[in-house]
């Protein structure tokens, strides 16, 4: 939901990147913004914690300890309390970050790969290929995203990988539109003509000349989209259609914790807050990156 406005604002050739160096300049500008920098630092810390999970001195996330069930926050052995099976919530949050972030980033990367391929082909080849691909994209867009994702899961079966695929399929049209719009603004430029005149193949022109020049708006779209993908994959896990027990995943942790809200509210508060912080940081980074890359889109 969050990123609709920003992504829609990007859905135009105006945001096409015609200078690869602009990306670096934008990153430097981004680093100078305090809010963006804070979000980047927090996000980097969360990713570092997730990657370092096997090296950290924390309990096994799946280790059951029945006598220690439902302990609250600040317990001497369980800093973030324990769950209904006596498992350490802190450990499950850190290990869960690996699963939740992987699912969100994985779905966004897959979505971008499908969308960019479709957008490149449609924008570059034009004519009936363009019509066919973009009309197909319109059809996918006609489905509310989570309903389509649920439909795909109904076919493929529950599970984290299938949830990622389902979310990626439901979300590729935005990338396809951004890529196509950018290709249209780049394909008639002199350097493409030059590549064509020295005999470069169509595939070569698309991958070596056009793709690097449309990366800027795609990177912004990705940074705005990845938060949404984390929410969607977590939502599917919450519904029992994504990660399956005993896998520690933030969405499924909230789902199992909801049965204990009367006496152990931390079981929903801690993983929910983790999702919230990650999505907030990603939204801030995406917003600021977009402003830094294309000041014309500021205030949208």
């Amino acid at each position, binding site marked *: *939901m*969050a990123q*609709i*406005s920003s992504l829609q604002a990007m859905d135009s050739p105006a945001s096409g990147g015609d200078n690869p160096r602009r990306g670096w300049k934008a990153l430097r500008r981004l680093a100078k913004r305090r809010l963006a920098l804070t979000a980047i630092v927090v996000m980097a810390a969360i990713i570092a914690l997730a990657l370092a999970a096997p090296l950290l001195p924390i309990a096994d996330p799946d280790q059951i300890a029945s006598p220690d069930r439902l302990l609250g926050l600040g317990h001497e052995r369980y800093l973030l309390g324990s769950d209904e099976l006596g498992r350490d919530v802190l450990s499950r949050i850190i290990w869960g970050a690996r699963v939740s972030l992987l699912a969100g980033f994985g779905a966004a990367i897959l979505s971008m790969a499908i969308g960019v391929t479709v957008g490149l082909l449609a924008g570059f080849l034009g004519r009936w290929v363009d019509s066919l691909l973009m*009309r*197909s994209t*319109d*059809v*996918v867009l*006609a*489905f*509310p*995203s*989570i*309903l*389509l994702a*649920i*439909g*795909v*899961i*109904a*076919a*493929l*079966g*529950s599970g984290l990988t299938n949830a990622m695929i389902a979310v990626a399929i439901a979300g590729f049209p935005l990338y396809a539109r951004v890529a196509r719009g950018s290709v249209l603004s780049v394909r008639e430029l002199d350097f493409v003509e030059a590549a064509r005149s020295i005999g470069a193949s169509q595939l070569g022109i698309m991958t070596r000349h056009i793709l690097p020049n449309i990366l800027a708006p795609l990177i912004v779209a990705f940074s705005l989209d990845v*938060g949404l993908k984390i*929410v969607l994959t*977590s*939502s599917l896990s*919450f*519904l*029992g*259609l994504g990660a399956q027990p005993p896998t520690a995943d933030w*969405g499924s942790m*909230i789902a199992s914790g*909801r049965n204990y*809200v*009367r006496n152990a*509210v931390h079981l*929903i*508060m801690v993983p*929910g807050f983790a*999702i*919230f912080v990650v*999505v*907030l940081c990603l*939204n*801030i980074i995406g*917003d600021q990156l977009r402003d830094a890359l294309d000041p014309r889109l500021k*205030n*949208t």
Partner: protein
Amino acid sequence: MHYFLLSRILHTIPVLLGVSLLAFFVLRLAPGDPVLMMLPADATQSEIESLRETLGIDRPIVIQYLSWLQEVAGGNLGQSLFTNRPVIDEILTRFPNTLILAAASLVLAIVLGMPLGIIAAVRHGTSVDSGSMVLSVIGWSMPNFWLGLILIVVFSVWLGWLPTGGMYDMMAMERSFWDLLRHLILPAITLATAHMAYIARFTRSSLLEVLRQDYVRTARAKGLSEWLVIMRHALRNSLIPIISVLSVTLGHLLSGAVIVEAVFSWPGLGSLMVQSISNRDFPMVQGAMLFAATVFILSNLIADILYAFVDPRIKYR
């Protein structure tokens, strides 16, 4: 105008056909025999054969699609494998509940989001502006299933003011509007929050755009008060793009309702879909997908037509 209307309606037909194709084929994505996938593992051979015959699985896929499409065009979405009732009946029973939830959320999102956006635009660059935008970023970054649970904990478990879920009190002798309203408050707030943030942000950017126009400068130059400039000149024009936003919002409300209905046990279309997956009721999933997408497409169509009525420039584009 007639040409615009006709072409816009005609454009909807291929999208609807595409939607039917996708809804039909998405459940054939699964590897293996779809009939075995729909039935429990201990199904007898005669049950398998009977379902195979009902679904017409042995025929060529194109023929299957065309005959399914013919049935769908006649309003027949098939039979539920779980309840044995017609899918369309189940959907029509549940859809009004989703619509009530979505409509209440839309009203809340507009009533709270638009003033927030207007205040932010009018006080552009001040702490009020940054404060309301911070609120909107927080609003849309919050996963709605988490927000729903927090509201349940605070208002139902701790304070005991509102029910934890459902649409009516199960113990009540008769259904009253007041009872519905009490059950509606928390899910509607949950569903509205992200959309409120989106509408606030969109209203702000749209109003800021209009405030830079020459005719607003003229209005100020002729000595109108700032209040009149905003209410009579700027706001009216800045609201035009919001119509298109509202149609998108309706689609996303339908989407978000899936999660919110699951959190609050709201008996709508979304919870029907989630239940149908665990019941392996594929005709129901297919029917609900098709129905939701059609509602979404039609709401976009209505919004586009409304947009053209409100802004006469549209039809010349």
